[in-house]
């Protein structure tokens, strides 16, 4: 559970980073007062796109409108020609780009999860949109609509959520950002590399807290499961413990056996947990590839194993001490 949840957190961040990098921009301008990542309402004046294009070293700039659809789902309004040019072009697995106002394009993962094809319709913002194309994933988002249509529909005409900027020479990135900041002092402006560093668990306090809660629950869960399992097992094995004591086993011998069993159980449990994280990754990738992405976070293997072992040892301590102190004669009489 721990590895899956951490993997989902990490996987979604990595996926978002990869899709953001897929835009092909060197600089990102976000609305004043917004954080580096997260869903941003469209409140940047679109005239800034044209202004940005005129700045030194800037070869392309395009604004994108982001509309939340509930949860972490969003739909993006884009200038497809500009975005295509900046990102190196879209690869359409099926169909073609949108052309008219009521058309949408989706990526392969969204199509797979929702079982959509070219010609299907999808309901977005209470309207039916015809899907005209399914593109190879890794470009900005999973669902795209014509920007002007989305702006009109959401009463944000002339506003964008993010401006992506491409330079003639990436080495000039910091100089261009410095130039931008002279005019747009309240706007968070990031180079792509700076933004990439923000796509980590440490940059999102809520996610960090969530992982902390998951860890705590895992220790508690491990403790309770092992405690109850070992308590019951020891009760069931009272007679066996009596036999061992009749053979001359002391408290430390009985304690040693139970601790070794618990450590073995924790190791097997950890290995099964690692295996299960691959299974959940496959399930997510097969059934809900657009909604979630799970990464395999190798760094967490020893952490999760240590937490499992810690919880298990905590859980076995009382039952094991109780077993070790059991009276041999009473244990032998137990049926």
């Amino acid at each position: 559970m721990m590895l899956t949840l951490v993997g989902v957190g990490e996987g979604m961040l990595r996926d978002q980073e990869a899709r953001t990098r897929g835009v092909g921009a060197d600089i990102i301008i976000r609305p004043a007062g917004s954080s580096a990542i997260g869903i941003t309402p469209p409140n940047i004046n679109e005239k800034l796109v044209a202004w940005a294009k005129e700045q030194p070293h800037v070869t392309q700039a395009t604004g994108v409108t982001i509309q939340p659809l509930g949860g972490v789902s969003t739909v993006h309004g884009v200038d497809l020609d500009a975005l295509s040019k900046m990102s190196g072009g879209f690869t359409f697995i099926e169909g073609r780009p949108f052309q008219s106002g009521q058309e949408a394009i989706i990526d392969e993962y969204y199509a797979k999860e929702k079982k959509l094809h070219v010609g299907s319709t999808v309901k977005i913002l209470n309207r039916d949109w015809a899907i005209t194309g399914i593109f190879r994933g890794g470009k900005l988002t999973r669902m795209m609509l014509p920007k002007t249509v989305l702006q009109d529909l959401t009463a944000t005409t002339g506003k964008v959520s993010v401006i992506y900027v491409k330079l003639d020479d990436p080495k000039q990135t910091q100089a261009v950002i410095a130039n931008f900041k002279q005019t747009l002092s309240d706007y968070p402006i990031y180079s792509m590399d700076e933004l990439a560093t923000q796509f980590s668990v440490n940059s999102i306090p809520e996610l960090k807290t969530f992982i902390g809660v998951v860890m705590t629950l895992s220790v508690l869960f491990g403790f309770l499961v092992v405690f109850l399992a070992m308590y019951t097992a020891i009760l069931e094995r009272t007679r066996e413990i009596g036999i061992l004591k009749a053979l001359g086993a002391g408290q430390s011998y009985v304690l040693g056996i139970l601790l070794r069993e618990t450590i073995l159980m924790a190791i097997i449990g950890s290995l099964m947990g690692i295996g299960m994280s691959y299974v959940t990754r496959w399930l997510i990738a097969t059934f809900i590839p657009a909604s979630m992405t799970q990464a395999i976070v190798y760094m967490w293997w020893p952490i999760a194993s240590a937490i499992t072992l810690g919880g298990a040892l905590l859980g076995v301590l009382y039952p094991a001490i109780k077993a070790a102190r059991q009276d041999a004669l009473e244990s032998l009489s137990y049926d």
Partner: protein
Amino acid sequence: MTEPIIAIRDLRKTFRSGEVDVHALRGVDLSVAHGEFLAIVGPSGSGKSTLFNILGGLTPPTSGTVLIDGQDLMQLSDSGRTNLRKKTVGFVFQKYNLLPTLTVADNIEIARDIAGVTGPMDQQFRDVLDTLGIANKMDRKPRQLSGGEQQRVAIARSVVNRPAILLADEPTGNLDTENSTAVLDLMRSLNKKLGQTILMITHNPEAAAFADRIVHMRDGHLHAAA
């Protein structure tokens, strides 16, 4: 004359059952020589199992003197009694008391492990396994064996560390006549071959007849056989 391996003087054991004191042993005197095969016969409630448990270090005496191979049980702590079970005394129980999840080999091996014995089993013990007829059943689990075979495994386990004394509590209690005779013959044979002292508790006079000497127990007292 050599010192007896078991010397009991005025042994008493009183249990508290609710608010009543139960006097299970009321002044037992007994001497058992090295290599002797002794049968203690008596009805249920006569105190013979209590005597068995005290001699095996499973429960402490209330008063009296009990010397086992020179060790005074009254002076032994809990860990001292654990050591007695590990090194000096082996048990054979009526219910066999084998560990059900282990094979025959592992049931025997765990007794060696508890005693801290390492290395392969010696030839003398392999001969014992042949005598007991279980040498070819070492990889079986107890549930795959008959009652007689399980009891023979229990005997093998009890003698693997060469304890000076073998305590057997109704070793044929769960066996049919044929298996009972076989087990008693084997115990008799091991007694002669290994020179171990055997104390067998039974209520069956036919089983007791395999012993060198028989003593009777009634109401917490021992009486020599008539």
